[in-house]
């Protein structure tokens, strides 16, 4: 199994006025290609911060992050944008869809920034919506959809550019338990297809689906099995 990402002593410090918060305090771990792991921990323990750094939305204050064996420390903003576009699929708790655009256009968005032609884009986005069972809702806006449908659109968007890593930060946090199970079923299927997934969750039941659980507290990994 290839190592996809490797974190070495990652530190993230937030400076807000006089107090500085050590959100991550020396996190080291690696994730192999095709793994499905969950990150658990109390609120404020640094889970989101970690996900943002793994997803190249943020940079660590200190430490090294290897992605596909490459040290990402010196990457420019443009490099990071390219990696976010091609390598990472992010699923948020609050869906983060563009409200004025249709489901199809939302799913197309990563392909727009990838520079793909309109026709190919539409085809690929439609295929992804089919995969999450929403092709019949392609021309509706998120405002016309239920929470579960929105999260499926968001998953389709995360998958559309065929990323090597899917990150989900409390993807079922805003959903009822029945819909949450449906979403987790999709993730399970993706894992079976060989995708690499990291899922942040509070729900032990959801974490139980994953083969590996990383527990984090006060910015440190306290358990990894």
């Amino acid at each position, binding site marked *: 199994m290839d190592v996809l990402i490797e974190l070495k002593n990652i530190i993230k410090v937030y400076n807000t006025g006089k107090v500085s918060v050590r959100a991550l305090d020396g996190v080291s771990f690696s994730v192999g290609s095709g793994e499905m792991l969950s990150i658990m921990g109390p609120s404020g323990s640094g889970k989101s911060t970690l996900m*943002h750094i793994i*997803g190249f*939305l*943020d940079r660590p204050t200190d430490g090294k992050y290897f992605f596909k064996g490459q040290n990402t420390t010196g990457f420019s*903003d*443009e490099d990071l*944008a*390219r990696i*976010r*576009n*091609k390598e990472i699929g*992010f699923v*948020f708790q609050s869906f*983060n*869809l*563009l409200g*004025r*655009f249709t489901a199809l256009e939302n799913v197309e*968005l*990563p392909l*727009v*920034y*990838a*520079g793909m032609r*309109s026709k190919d884009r539409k085809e690929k986005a439609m295929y992804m919506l089919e995969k999450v069972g929403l092709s019949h809702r392609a021309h509706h806006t998120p405002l016309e959809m239920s929470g579960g449908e929105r999260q499926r659109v968001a998953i389709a*968007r995360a998958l559309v*550019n065929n990323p090597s890593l899917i990150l989900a930060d409390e993807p079922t946090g805003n959903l009822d338990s029945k819909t949450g199970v449906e979403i987790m079923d999709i993730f399970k299927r993706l894992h079976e297809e060989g995708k690499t997934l990291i899922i942040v969750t509070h729900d032990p039941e959801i974490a139980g689906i994953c083969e590996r659980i990383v527990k984090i507290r006060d910015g440190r990994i306290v358990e990894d099995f």
Partner: protein
Amino acid sequence: MDLGVLIRSAFLSLFATKSRSLLTTLGVIIGVTTVIAMVSIVDGINKYVYSALSVLGTKSVYIQKYKWLNVGNRREEFRKWSRYPDFTFEDVEFVKSLPFIEDAAAVQNVLSSIRIRYRGESVSGALVGVDDASFRVLNEELSSGRWFSYMDVIERRRVCIIGYEVRDVLFDNEDPIGKTIRIGRHSYVVIGTLKKKGSTLGNSQDNMVYIPVTLAQNYARRWRMRLWGSLSIVALFKDDVELEQGIEKLRIALRKRRHLSFDEDDNFFINTQEQIVSAYRKITGGIYLAMIAIASLSLLVGGIGIMNIMLVSVTERTREIGIRMAVGARRKDILLQFLVEANILTLTGGIIGVALGFILAKIIALLTPLKASVALWSVILGVGFSMIVGIFFGLYPANKASKLDPVEALRYE
């Protein structure tokens, strides 16, 4: 990035705040409307003036003791000019004989307003003395009768040719040829009538009364009109002679004839239509300048409005920016998106402004004798300026948007 997507994105967000977007473009609309309307009005005036002037013919020049449209110390110069030697009929013959001159004629303005009577009717006319050659040189057209003969001129016959308006008022349906009219205190026999000419720059050209120049000189002498009543020579250059070169040759020939030494100034003037045109151009240049000032002011105000609203938009859509960055938008993609949006705002304003300006020009054309013509360059200028405003004032908000931190932007409520 895909331009179609950019434009659709821009329209989606602008339409979401329709009335705000429209109000924002108002400044640009006013600016561009001003440019288009003003340019077409000035252009209309230009065309009107130039066509009026071309009636007079541009290949002819007026050799006179005074200068047209003088702006110096009038009293002093008038006194000086009065002392210049008068032109004579021999001078006319001399000019006529020059190799580059097609023809020349003597013309003497007597009075711009004199009572002309026939039976019970009376009308005010402009009395001008001309000779037999003036017919060709002044490009006159007769409606009936004949022009002055050489004999009419040298024998000082009391005959006259009347303009369309004079004939219309005095004679109704009666044939004026051979009838005797009173001009001031003297009687003249009408030998010809002129075709209708209309008016030039608001002056009627149809109230002319021509008499032999030899008689006109009597009036001038009697009334001591040393300057305005002095004899003018109207000269017409040959077709292959360039106006400027012709004028220079003519000047040299006249200086020689008057034995002026090289350090003496000319004691005559060669006046041309071009002088009027260039003086006129100076005025319209001023109008253009004022117009540009008004337009740039409203475009500036419009631009600041655009910048303000784009800043608001960037703040409102912080989360959207975060989402776009999360799925791979580069900083320059975000920059471009907001620049395109600002430009669509100003461009829409520009296009509305062009349309309004065009309508305004049409309305003015309906209400005045001016022709409305929207010049292509003013449209390009209007649209171009609104784009420049969009880029200039859109840059700051767009740059601000592109500099946002992805995580901070996603966190924004």
